[in-house]
């Protein structure tokens, strides 16, 4: 059987189709949001939120609730707090993220261990699972994808202004807080959905890698946006196919694929500067 036929065979599994739809949409959303988060020095928020998501899901499972129903509101609140806390409080942003993420992870583990009778494999939440996506999550993901793409096209210019110079944007009368709230809600939902495939420990790479790779080779904001979407989608597909063909863990393979692209882009950027 040729490789082509094997790849086509991938699509015959319905769970694979769901994973492809959800994964590509999450990659797209994460890469768009990632450009803003990386440039605003909020990259680690993705990591922190995924840990909070893990804690919330574990607690939800212990009380026999659907994981997403518990996780999404909790993570949205956490995102809101983290973005606010990092500005106003005496505990600085990076320390605050460290505190919140490890606490959430610990609480999740403790509650899960205490609740008798659960035999859910928390490992699949840690490193993700391609089998985890059900139909309702796919629908949610499609809606999210449409909202994120729409928001980034319609609000492209204010988003640029806020990312580049928040004070100037505020001085011209822009309601910066509203935009930041929208961004944090979208980030939260993207992470909760994405962590089902990528896992708690690896989802933040979807946010950070594509933006950084794109910034190696292009220096215009619009180009960075477009480029990071392309890189993110490309890495998702190559990672997914490679993991299917070589029977490797999906999330980890996608991250490795992102890493390869990042290295190539860094070298390409260096050559470009010298030329």
């Amino acid at each position, binding site marked *: 059987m040729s490789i082509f036929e094997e790849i086509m065979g991938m699509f015959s599994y319905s769970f694979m189709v769901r994973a492809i739809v959800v994964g590509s949409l999450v990659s797209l959303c994460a890469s768009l949001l990632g450009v803003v988060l990386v440039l605003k020095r909020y990259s680690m928020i993705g990591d922190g939120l995924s840990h909070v998501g893990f804690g919330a899901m574990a607690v939800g499972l212990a009380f026999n609730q659907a994981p997403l129903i518990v996780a999404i509101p909790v993570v949205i609140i956490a995102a809101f707090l983290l973005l606010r806390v990092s500005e106003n409080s005496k505990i600085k942003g990076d320390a605050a993220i460290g505190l919140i993420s490890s606490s959430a992870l610990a609480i999740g583990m403790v509650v899960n261990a205490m609740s008798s009778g659960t035999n859910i494999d928390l490992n699949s939440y840690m490193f993700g699972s391609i089998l985890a996506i059900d139909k309702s999550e796919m629908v949610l993901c499609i809606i999210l994808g449409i909202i994120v793409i729409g928001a980034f096209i319609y*609000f492209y*210019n204010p988003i640029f202004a806020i990312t*580049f110079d928040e*004070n100037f944007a*505020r*001085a011209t009368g822009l309601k910066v807080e509203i935009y930041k709230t929208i961004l944090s809600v979208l980030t939260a939902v993207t992470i909760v959905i994405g962590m089902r495939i990528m896992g708690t420990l690896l989802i933040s790479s979807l946010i950070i890698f594509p933006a950084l790779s794109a910034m190696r080779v292009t*220096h215009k904001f619009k180009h960075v946006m477009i480029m990071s979407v392309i890189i993110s989608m490309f890495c998702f597909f190559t990672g997914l196919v490679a993991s299917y063909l070589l029977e490797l863990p999906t999330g980890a393979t996608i991250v490795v694929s992102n890493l390869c692209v990042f290295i190539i882009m860094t070298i390409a950027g260096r050559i470009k500067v010298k030329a």
Partner: protein
Amino acid sequence: MSQLICKNISIAYEKENVVDNLSITVEKGDYVSIIGENGTGKSSLLKGILGLVALKNGQVIFDEGCSRKNIGYLSQQNPMQKDFPASVYEVVLSGCLKSKGLRPFYSKREKQLAMENLKKLGMDGLKKSCYADLSGGQKQRVLLARALCATDRMIILDEPVTGLDPVATADMYHLVNKLNKDLGITIIMVTHDIDNALKYSNKILHLHKKNKYYYGPKEDYLIHGGCTEDCCASDVSELPKTALDEERITPEELKYGPADSECNNPTCQCHHHMCNKSGGDR
């Protein structure tokens, strides 16, 4: 014709007033320099005027076609912008954000405005360059062009020459002065550079510690030295003209007061030249 009136404004961070009961009036075409030591609330005052921080008391009133929506603002250099991937043109165009309103994209007119302002500041040749690759002086020109896209009335600058070399600093002052004189744009600038503040501006706001301040025309300031005590704040205009010229303080002496000129007046805490000589008995 007043463009900006600050009425008894106070700004506080965690209960401590950094600006207390300050009142100033800025006329159309004024060039106001705000000077003073660190921690006297210069930047806070600007942020209060721009609405970036909440006022504890008082009012900021705009008039003469000026409003918070059409002030250009040039903030202190932001370390985050060091590796920001944006072209010069993208940065300048973002100054048109307000006039764009709810439309998703910029109109032809706004794009033209951005180009015109780039030309005015001699940066049109670099419009495709990456903002992060520019020199400090060029960056400030770009930000000035962005501010011009936001206003044709008033520009507020927060330490625009910090970190620039002497040539770029002189260039920056020259440019701002040109905007003020040629285009009639009102300038409010925070600066530590007293020489240039006195050279170009027509009004001085000198913020002192303990929330005292001097605000008035540059000519009076040169005599008062920014002293806010009663002994000195008495009527300068009554002094004979020649005496004024003789007693005029050079900018060098003025830098927060020469150390050797302690005031003789026991009630006066000030450190300035004129006060030393007349001891408050003017």
